[in-house]
């Protein structure tokens, strides 16, 4: 048996070894990556081959590079060295001219090679953190309003205090007024700065929540796996009652959004009952076009939403969903690890989501490749449909939905694949005709 095959056939063993070392229960890991414990058990005993998205998900859960699981530590080390060299700006001298000798280096100096690999992982982690924070500083409306409040209060205090300490006479009435103003503003500043600190604490880049109503809804749906069995029943509970019992929905606005989302979920469930739709989705490989033909009265947008709300079958990849309004603002996000959906600001204008907005009621499909490391591929299915009942003398209001399906198919030569990003600020694509602003990524690839 060739060495490569032997190495690959032991992927399951490496997964098990790593999981046990981390003290992870098999059922917990299975749940985290969206497969059954029984299926994970088969993988861990090397009775099921694993690759692609599921391998990447498991590697992420186990905090290890996928190549370590797939190929073993030595190959992963060489891969990390090459990644580190490739990440250097083109202007800096690196070892990638001709013979890179990475294997020789890793073999002779495994300790130093491990240090470089660890540094590369650390740099990548910090880059992601910076991307997120920069995106947030530029676009988070809550942060902008909080900072404005703090700076305005500081301005009032500074101006009043300067008047009091400047030389010259000042009437008692004015002096008292400015003392009072400084006292009031200092209290206000204390409150607004405390609120700002609490907001930043609650929404650290690691936890990635901001306390905004839309994010409460998404955190709650994420915890449910975006599937709500209670609303699939013949006699479902009142959405408001369900929202009241959800710990993630802490604000009235969050609960109101969730109520609206659940009412639509229920309508979708009535139009496309779970058992029949799930069976058809399995049989038709979750193809929205084929499902639209099978359920002609349901509407394409409902089919896209319904597919994103189905439990992920064992061994299958999670499906993402993005919904935007007529302005292009994302109103709902079910992100994928390799297809992030921006929290603030506008998304990539090349997405089929936005093409669909310009062609209402016409389904749009495209093969996509996400720019950046990994260059993961997806099939995206999008459609824009009117919101609310039709009426005269009212502006048309549309909403577009885009289903994002990881795509591991082999490509035919010449098959078109559209390169897209997440948002311009953190997109490495060069010479993009749709770029709005420069990328913060230095020396984009």
């Amino acid at each position, binding site marked *: 048996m060739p060495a490569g095959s032997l190495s690959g056939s032991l992927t399951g063993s490496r997964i098990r070894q790593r999981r046990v070392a981390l003290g992870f229960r098999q059922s917990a890991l299975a749940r985290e990556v969206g497969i059954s414990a029984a299926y994970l058990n088969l993988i861990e005993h090397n009775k099921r081959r694993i690759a692609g998205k599921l391998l990447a998900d498991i590697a992420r859960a186990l905090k290890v590079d996928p190549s370590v699981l797939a190929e073993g530590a030595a190959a992963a080390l060489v891969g990390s060295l090459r990644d580190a060299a490739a990440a250097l700006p083109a202007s800096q001298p690196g070892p990638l001219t001709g013979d890179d000798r990475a294997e020789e280096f890793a073999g002779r100096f495994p300790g130093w090679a491990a240090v470089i690999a660890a540094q590369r992982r650390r740099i990548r982690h910090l880059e992601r953190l910076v991307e997120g924070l920069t995106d947030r500083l530029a676009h988070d409306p809550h942060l*902008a309003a909080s*900072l*404005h409040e703090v*700076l*305005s*209060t*500081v*301005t*009032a205090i*500074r*101006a*009043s205090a*300067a*008047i009091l300490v*400047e030389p*010259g006479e000042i009437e008692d009435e*004015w002096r008292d*007024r*400015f003392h009072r*103003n400084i006292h*009031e*503003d200092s209290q206000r500043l204390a409150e607004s700065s405390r609120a700002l600190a609490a907001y930043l604490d609650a929404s650290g880049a690691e936890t990635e929540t901001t306390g905004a109503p839309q994010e409460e809804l998404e955190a709650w749906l994420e915890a449910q796996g975006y599937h709500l069995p209670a609303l699939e029943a013949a006699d479902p509970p009142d959405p408001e009652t369900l929202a009241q019992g959800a710990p993630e929905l802490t604000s009235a606005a969050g609960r109101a959004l969730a109520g609206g989302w659940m009412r639509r979920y229920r309508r979708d469930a009535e139009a496309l009952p779970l058992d029949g739709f799930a069976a058809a989705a399995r049989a038709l490989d979750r193809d929205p076009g084929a499902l639209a033909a099978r359920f002609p009265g349901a509407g394409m947008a409902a089919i896209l939403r319904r597919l994103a709300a189905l439990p992920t079958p064992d061994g299958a990849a999670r499906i993402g969903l993005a919904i935007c309004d007529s302005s292009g603002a994302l109103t709902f996000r079910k992100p994928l690890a390799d297809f992030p959906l921006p929290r603030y600001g506008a998304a990539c204008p090349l997405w089929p989501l936005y093409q669909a907005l310009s062609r209402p009621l016409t389904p749009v499909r495209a093969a996509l490749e996400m720019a950046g490391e990994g260059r993961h591929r997806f099939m995206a299915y999008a459609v824009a449909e009117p919101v609310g009942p039709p009426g005269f003398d009212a502006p048309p209001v549309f909403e577009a939905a885009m289903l994002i399906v990881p795509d591991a198919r082999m490509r035919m030569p010449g098959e078109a694949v559209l390169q897209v990003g997440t948002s311009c600020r953190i997109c490495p694509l060069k010479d993009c005709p749709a770029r709005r602003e420069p990328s913060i990524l230095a020396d984009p690839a």
Partner: protein
Amino acid sequence: MSKRVLLIEDEPNIIQAIGFILSRDGWTVDSHADGETAMAEIRRRAPDLVILDVMLPNRSGYDILSDLRADPALGAMPVLMLTARGQSRDREQAERIGASRFMTKPFSNTEMLEAVRELVAS
């Protein structure tokens, strides 16, 4: 007769402080706190200078400045823009629309006074 400044700002204590500083220097200061009705107030008072905050209730200072510059009767009026954001793109936007001067909060009283004197003198 003293020169007149219209301060369009919604923070009462900033209004008091700027009003005091300018009044002590001999200016007549009026204030207005609402963005939506700010243009009507500028037309009514026809001041020698407008100090305009960017973030106002109901309408942004940028929109007000655009309207002001498009009005033949008011287009040449000096406008000092105030903002709590000091990013270069805010400054660029203010200058593109036609701000005479751009000042970032928090500013010093001396800086404010000198800017007002210079803008009206020029």
